[in-house]
């Protein structure tokens, strides 16, 4: 019986793996050499800091807050802080360039392992250091459409960065069909990162929308 369960588990994993790759194939993408395809990171080396309005929808509940993303070159990291409009801090995380995540502060009502893990994993996708070493595979649609996809190496799962005629990723997707898989849509890149960032999740009713606030003192 135990052996049967293992066989089912391995078989399902293979199906999921093949499924995610074949999905790219179905869209017309073909594997190519990586050298000619490079993305700018979502928050590039010239990025300093941005203030966002955040809207978090979990099930039927919607919360709003503010969020700051700041690059910390001296620590080789990015800081992410959420705080209420009236100033009360909700959470603070540090995303290091080497992939580590430090939770600096988590408000009591958010301090749950599942929430911390999901938020860490989601935002880590934004701060991935895209280098030739971190690219696992590159796909493009033949015929010079400008569309290409980079598949990044990951510790536990791979992620895909999609672009369409831009040097910036417009969609980021985690591989597989597991619970809570993340899709991020990014749009309107300016000098200071994307104006809009939308996180959504498969089989998990959690959406996070970040919209850049025009804050003249920083612009």
């Amino acid at each position, binding site marked *: 019986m135990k052996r049967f369960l293992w066989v089912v588990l391995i078989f399902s994993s293979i199906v999921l793996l093949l499924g995610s790759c074949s999905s790219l194939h179905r869209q017309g993408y073909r594997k190519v050499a990586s050298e000619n395809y490079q993305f700018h990171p979502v928050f590039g080396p010239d990025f300093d800091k941005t203030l966002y309005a955040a809207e978090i929808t979990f099930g039927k509940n*919607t919360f*709003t807050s503010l969020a700051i993303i*700041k690059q910390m070159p001296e620590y080789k990291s990015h800081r992410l802080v959420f705080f209420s*409009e*009236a100033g009360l801090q909700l959470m603070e995380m540090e995303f290091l360039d080497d992939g580590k995540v430090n939770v600096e*502060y988590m408000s009591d009502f958010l301090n749950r392992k599942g929430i911390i893990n999901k938020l860490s994993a989601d935002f880590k996708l934004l701060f991935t250091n895209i280098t030739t070493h971190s690219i696992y595979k590159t796909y493009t649609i033949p015929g010079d459409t400008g569309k290409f996809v980079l598949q990044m190496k990951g510790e536990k799962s791979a992620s895909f960065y999609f672009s369409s005629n831009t040097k910036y990723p417009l969609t980021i997707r985690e591989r597989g069909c597991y619970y809570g898989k993340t899709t991020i849509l990014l749009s309107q890149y300016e000098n200071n990162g994307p104006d809009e960032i939308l996180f959504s999740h498969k089989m998990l009713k959690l959406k996070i929308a970040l919209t850049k*606030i025009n804050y003249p003192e920083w612009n």
Partner: protein
Amino acid sequence: MQKSIFTFVIAILGVFLVHAQPEGFTEVADTAYILQKVNEVASQTNTINTEFVQEKNLAFLYEKITSKGILLYQKPEKLRLEYISPFSYLLIMNDGELLIRNDDKEIKIALESSTMFNEINDLIINSIQGSILNMPELSAFFYENDESFFVQLWPQQEGLKKYIKTIELYISKKDYTVTDFKVIELSDDYTLIKFVNKIINEEIPVGGFNFQ
């Protein structure tokens, strides 16, 4: 023996550090007088209409994040907090309900259903009119200079202790109303709200606390 002396010194230093006297201020001897005056003014205050400037200070940012808005208050528990720049955000507390409007989206919360919102609601309303000094959940330390009283409030209740390290108030000696309100969080990051162009006891415009 050495360990006991060390512990004793640390404990004494701790007391001094925790309740360190702010620069330019001296400790107030007669705190009952301040309480009496603040309560007197609070009892005579029926409405407040004031602009505010809010500064959020985060340890890792060199600059403060400054937002501005208008606050309306009407006795006993009506409050309108409207942020105008750099973002628009409206919060209305009226008859036990809390309305939050952000751009085109609205959220209504029954204050009774949320302990956290209730505690924050009490804190805001009591801070504006100064009656925060009477809250048993906070222990107060009073200081003064020529112009102001400076009050440090330390949460004693576990619920507040989870979010707030201290609250600092500046009370004007001219009219015994709160001019500055500072909330220091556990991380030492803080939010400072300065009330400017304050108008007391003027009729609040019709619909100021309506949810429409």
